[in-house]
């Protein structure tokens, strides 16, 4: 039976984390050498955690499915990382970053976690500078900032359009140092396929070596999952092709509660899908909305070129509806506005799936060179994909599944409902509520990995009696058997359809019924259709080759199989939440002019789902109490 104890310290918000750190027990340096920790995933959260734990003296074994730890999908984040430095003296503070994040998340996150995130944000920048991250600088040598959606201050630090890459390479370099020192053993091309739980504690994982196909068990004193988000469940998303839900989903099946799985951020500014063979959607950084203006023709004007449409016939819809924030409203608000227009038939481009993002005004006011310096790489990327020159013709953009606020439930210590299983970064649910603000995911990943988990895991290790177990322990053997039988089953399909065709189909179903807008009828139908699709998958999937070699199709089919189960959990969550909040928009719950209606009396809670072997998942609720901010209607007008 799952119980949810958030373990949030009492007392004033500002001192919770400091007091908590002092009351936490420490592991003595001599004992750390004898403690082994497994870290799965090497994105910002995983790499920063593994390197810091190694530096503290623990024995760390670190896994990633990519060929190198430097390739995790954090690397693709373009825009930047927030920190409450207030270098611009424009009214920023820890309290304001906290408030913006809580409000941006539509009052569906924990106050204490978010405040701590805002507090450590400033340390992250300093740490990254020390590691040699080449942040953008002013001529005088100071760190530069830019503004981002959903806020009115300029607090975003950046490295051109490659901030995620530079922060990840910083964490990767720290990891390299610890590998060189022998503190971290790195195992690339190794995929976690199950969790080993002994006497209720997470004690190891089962992995498949993706080159040799060998399936082995690895045991440790604690396990850290930093395995990222799951928006690839929609098939087309901004995620890397390898991003998947398998590690967290397998942990869920072993007893870790999954929180708010339906909270998926649909990012407003991706390049519109163009054709059926498309394998992914490419994001255009949100920073483009600093200078670009979104519009559609006031009346649909067929194939009329955008530059021939005079401004009197253009509807700058975000500026019209949200005069205060204009084009810089949060992502969920912008995405929904775009979707509404396109659903009304006012979209532009092929199939009407798109709106214009226009830079004419800023080019006129500030010159082409300024725009080129700020966004050159993004304009180049746009041209390569679409063949169009956005300096001359407005970009076309359309929303795309991007980031998953949902994830494994964790307490204030970032520990899941399975003791000894810690979850960090996008893989947990903790900080972004129902919607994440731009430039906050990098902040959270590094906050968890560098500054929070290394403290909290110490307390667990210092206060828990952990008996040694062998790799052939009964629970290990059972987990190995579960993995082996699944591999056999995947290879045993009749081979009439590819895994990708099932993936595309489940993605389409979710996008239509559990994407930017959801309704009871659609969700209920989806809960009927997914099990049928899943049965067909297991009967008909084609996976050539064997399990004892490098077999990419086998890897992929295993991930699709988990998406086919996980999609159902998403729909259960969306169905239960009879309100609209953040990225979750229930059509039944909106104002007459289409704004979401939140229901704080019934749904001011985290929905944490427990796995049940035969039957629907069990819902547990962690009530959200707001002591320090008053939840208000989230208005950006």
């Amino acid at each position, binding site marked *: 039976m799952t119980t949810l104890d958030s373990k949030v310290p009492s007392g004033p918000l500002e001192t919770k984390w400091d007091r908590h750190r002092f009351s936490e027990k420490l592991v003595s340096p001599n004992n750390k050498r004898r403690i082994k920790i497994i870290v799965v995933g090497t994105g910002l959260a995983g790499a920063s955690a593994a390197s810091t734990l190694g530096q503290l003296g623990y024995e760390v074994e670190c896994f990633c499915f990519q060929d*190198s730890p430097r390739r995790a999908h954090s690397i693709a984040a373009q825009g930047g990382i927030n920190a409450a430095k207030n270098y611009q003296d424009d009214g920023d503070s820890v309290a304001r970053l906290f408030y913006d994040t809580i409000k941006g998340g539509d009052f569906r996150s924990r106050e204490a976690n978010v405040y701590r995130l805002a507090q450590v944000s400033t340390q992250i920048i300093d*740490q990254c500078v020390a590691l040699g991250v*080449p*942040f953008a600088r002013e001529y005088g040598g100071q760190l530069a900032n830019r503004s981002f959606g959903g806020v009115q201050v300029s607090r975003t630090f950046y490295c051109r359009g490659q901030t995620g890459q530079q922060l990840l390479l910083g964490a990767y*370099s720290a990891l390299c140092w610890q590998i060189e020192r022998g503190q971290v053993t790195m195992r690339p091309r190794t995929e976690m396929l199950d969790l080993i739980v002994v006497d209720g504690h997470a004690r190891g994982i089962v992995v498949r070596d993706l080159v040799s196909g060998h399936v082995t068990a690895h045991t440790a004193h604690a396990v850290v999952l930093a395995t990222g988000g799951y928006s690839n469940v929609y098939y087309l998303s901004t995620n890397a092709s390898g991003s998947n839900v398998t590690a967290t989903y397998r942990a869920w099946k072993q007893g870790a509660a999954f929180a708010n799985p339906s909270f998926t951020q649909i990012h407003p500014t991706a390049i519109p899908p163009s054709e059926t063979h498309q394998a*992914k959607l490419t994001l255009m950084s949100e920073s483009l909305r600093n200078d670009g203006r979104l519009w559609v023709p006031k009346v649909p004007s067929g194939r009329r070129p955008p530059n021939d449409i005079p401004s009197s016939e253009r509807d700058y819809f975000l500026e019209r509806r949200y005069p205060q924030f204009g084009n810089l409203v949060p992502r969920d608000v912008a995405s929904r506005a775009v979707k509404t227009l396109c659903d009304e038939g006012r979209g532009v481009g092929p199939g009407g799936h798109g709106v214009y993002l226009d830079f004419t005004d800023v080019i006129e006011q500030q010159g082409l060179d300024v725009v080129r310096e700020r966004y050159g790489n993004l304009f180049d990327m746009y041209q390569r994909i679409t063949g169009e020159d956005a300096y001359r013709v407005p970009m076309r953009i359309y929303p795309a599944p991007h980031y998953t606020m949902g994830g494994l439930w964790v307490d204030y210590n970032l520990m899941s409902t399975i003791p000894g299983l810690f979850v960090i970064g996008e893989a947990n649910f903790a900080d972004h509520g129902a919607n994440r603000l731009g430039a906050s995911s990098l902040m959270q990943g590094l906050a968890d990995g560098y500054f929070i988990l*290394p403290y909290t895991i110490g307390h667990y290790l210092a206060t828990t009696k952990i008996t040694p177990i062998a790799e052939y322990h009964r629970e290990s053997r059972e987990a190995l058997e579960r993995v082996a039988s699944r591999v056999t089953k995947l290879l045993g399909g009749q081979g009439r359809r590819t895994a990708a065709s099932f993936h595309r189909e489940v993605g389409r179903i979710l996008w239509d019924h559990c994407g930017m807008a959801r309704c009871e009828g659609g969700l209920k139908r989806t809960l009927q259709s997914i099990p049928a699709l899943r049965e067909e998958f297991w009967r008909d999937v084609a996976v050539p080759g064997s399990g004892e070699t490098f077999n990419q199709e086998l890897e992929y089919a295993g991930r699709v199989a988990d998406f086919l189960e996980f999609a159902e959990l998403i729909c259960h969550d969306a169905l239960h939440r009879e309100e609209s909040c953040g990225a979750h928009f229930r059509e039944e719950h909106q104002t007459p002019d289409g704004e979401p209606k939140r229901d704080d009396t019934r749904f001011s809670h985290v929905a944490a789902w427990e796995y049940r072997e035969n039957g629907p998942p069990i819902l547990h609720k962690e009530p959200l109490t707001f002591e320090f901010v008053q939840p208000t209607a989230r208005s950006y007008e």
Partner: protein
Amino acid sequence: MKFTLKIWRQQGPDDKGRFVTYQAHEVSPDMSFLEMLDSVNQGLIVKGEEPVAFEHDCREGICGSCSLVINGVPHGPERGIATCQLYMRRFSDGATITIEPWRARAFPIIKDLVVDRRALDRVMQAGGYISVNTGGAVDGNVVLIGKDQAETAMDAASCIGCGACVAACKNASAMLFVAAKVSHLASLPQGKPERTRRVTAMMEAMDREGFGACGNQYECEAVCPKSISVRFIATLNREYLRAGVVESGAPTVPEAPHAESD
């Protein structure tokens, strides 16, 4: 559009490997090169054949996974992009396209078009970092870094570690890769304390891993998806030379009579 593909197939490191010809039909000019390969693979899978193994992940040119030699050129005919950013509209309809893996002694083939690039990670582990502990860093604005200096560091730091530079070089040298990391850290004040040890350790690791020497032909720059300039190799050489001088110890003090003679 349709294409004839000559693709390198190799079961594993011990297999000899050979080119196999495939036809790609109904290719849209808006497809990416990898999406075109996806569709060929989908056809192979339903026929019960093993799909062509190739590396890919972010598919937006930043993770450095994709690694194909297309018509003899790493990352294909267009400059400044990775394979995943190449679109079929770049090719003429009906063309024959040859697809091979990175070929270098330091990159053993795992299967088909997938190679083992861990050698690059080991070079990084030898010294491609600043050894600072987490916590206790000074405020990011304490050490001022001029905009030009930061931009130079960023130019070098944009390396995605794909290994195209190695694949393009007839000596299979990793000089551009090492140069990018050494120059990035050497151009920032935070990287200065370890600059001597870093460059020596990384150069030694590069040799140890079986990468060749620089031949000054600049193929590396031509194929680099981030257009990293070969002038960073000059920076690397300077750093290496400087390290040699520093490591040989301080210049000896000349005998007094000679020093005072003029």
